[in-house]
């Protein structure tokens, strides 16, 4: 039995000019669930994530958060937008997009400043978040001078500082070294005592079982499966159709050997 409904997407269609990014996607995400949007590049998972964050809106179909429709008109309402932005946080795939402030401190403080919190509260929350994310020593550094792993931690901190109810993550471990990947995964597992709603878009099969208890498989803008991570990962035919595994040929002495190949980082 799941918790109250957090997001509902009904028959969402979205096009980038003539290219269909989402083609009639419907799904429901319950409060407290850790879900994964699994799919190959171009499957529409990043677009869906942005739609859940109210950054783009379906050409047809609907998206709602806790029963309230997420539309451009609704987000024009200051009270709703303020509340929604505090409750839902998105970590972009490319941290350079998200780190636009002169220092790490300013970056983490940006969200709270937009929420018009008091100065004392902002300072306390920013300091606490930087300690949790182990980036306090980077406080005065300009974000463009950080390593890939450090940038990602700052990007996540800049969202977590608002203590959102829902965390949306777009390829959180992309282009990170194994140690940084492991740190990010540990953080995601532990965040909010494992009770918060986390929706992660990824094509990394090795990540799915660690961070999710619910899996949506996407292919070419369509939702093709919804099941537990283990059910999806054990369905070789499904993964092959979704372009997440492929035939791999290599030599064993003089003989050629063929088997399905899975990329797990």
């Amino acid at each position, binding site marked *: 039995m799941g918790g109250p409904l957090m997001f509902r997407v009904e028959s969402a269609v979205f096009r980038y000019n003539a290219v269909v990014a989402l083609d009639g996607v419907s799904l429901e995400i319950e409060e407290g669930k850790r879900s994964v949007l699994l799919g190959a590049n171009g499957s529409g998972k990043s677009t869906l994530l*942005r739609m859940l*964050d109210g*950054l783009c809106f379906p050409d047809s179909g609907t998206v709602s958060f806790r029963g309230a429709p997420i539309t451009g008109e609704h987000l024009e309402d*200051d009270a709703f*937008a*303020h509340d929604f*932005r*505090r409750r839902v*946080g*998105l970590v*972009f795939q*490319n941290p*350079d*997009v*998200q*780190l*636009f*402030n*002169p*220092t790490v401190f*300013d970056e983490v*403080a*940006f*969200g709270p*400043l*937009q*929420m*018009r919190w008091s*100065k004392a509260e*902002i*300072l306390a929350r920013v300091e606490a978040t930087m300690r949790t994310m182990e980036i306090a020593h980077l406080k*005065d550094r*300009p*974000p*463009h*001078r950080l390593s890939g792993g450090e940038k990602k931690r700052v990007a996540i901190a*800049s*969202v977590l500082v*608002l203590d959102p109810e829902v965390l949306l993550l777009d390829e959180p471990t992309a282009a990170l070294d194994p140690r940084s990947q492991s740190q990010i995964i540990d953080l995601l597992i532990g965040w909010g005592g494992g009770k918060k709603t986390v929706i992660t878009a990824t094509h990394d099969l090795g990540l799915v079982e660690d961070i999710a208890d619910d899996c949506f498989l996407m292919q070419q803008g369509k939702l093709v499966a919804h099941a537990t991570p283990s059910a999806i990962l054990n369905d070789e035919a499904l993964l092959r159709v979704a372009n997440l595994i492929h035939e791999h040929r290599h030599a064993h002495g003089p003989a050629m050997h063929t088997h399905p190949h899975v990329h797990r980082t």
Partner: protein
Amino acid sequence: MKRTFVEKSIAGLAAGMSFAALAEASAREQSGALQRVDPRVKLAGMFALIVGVAASHSLSAIGAVFLLAVTLAIASRVALADLAKWVWMPVLLFSGCIALPAVFLTPGDRIGLATVQGLRTAAFLLLRAETAVSISSLLVLTTRWSNLLKALRVLRLPVVFVVILGMTYRYLFLMLETALAMFESRESRTVGVLDPADRRRLATATVGVLLSKSYQLSSEVHLAMQSRGFRGEVYVLDEFAARAVDWAWLGLFFVVAAAVAWVGR
């Protein structure tokens, strides 16, 4: 391979990145005298000094301010070799080119081909330029860029202007890195010497791609800002607190600025 004008410009800007790195490291030198002064005091005080130097008609008074700038550089642990490389030599070359004709063309008492009045005019131009640029460089080399931006608000610059300036500076680095990577990638795939028309065509195509990338990046950054609650109004956290010693520094700057202007009135 011969470089085009655009490539040379990009390489020149990349060299500017080295200066920015030097400035950042120098501004972090906590044992330096100027590094400990409130950025607003430095900005206002050094601006006053530059105005004083510009208003003064006394070579010795301007020379005294130049010596003061050198003394402050030493006290702030700014390497004079760096100042010579990044400030004094370029200013000497640039201003020297402008001042040189005056040495011969200014009417007055002849000393060979030059005139006394011409030499005096050239000396004024060079010394004023060297002193003013030395002072402004000291400001940059002893103040973190983020603090300098915030301090600009004492000049009553709108917050939105200061924030845009900060973002421009931050993303300039990213676009420069992208441009350099594109040129390196192209050079690694280019054999032999391209004719000028091809070089121009490639350079133009590169500029077009960079423009397109910067447009895409700016759209993404705007989405990232929206996602964290940005609604068109910019808020910043002002953390400066002037101490008695800062007021003393401000007094010193203003007294010297007034003195140099009065002596050279």
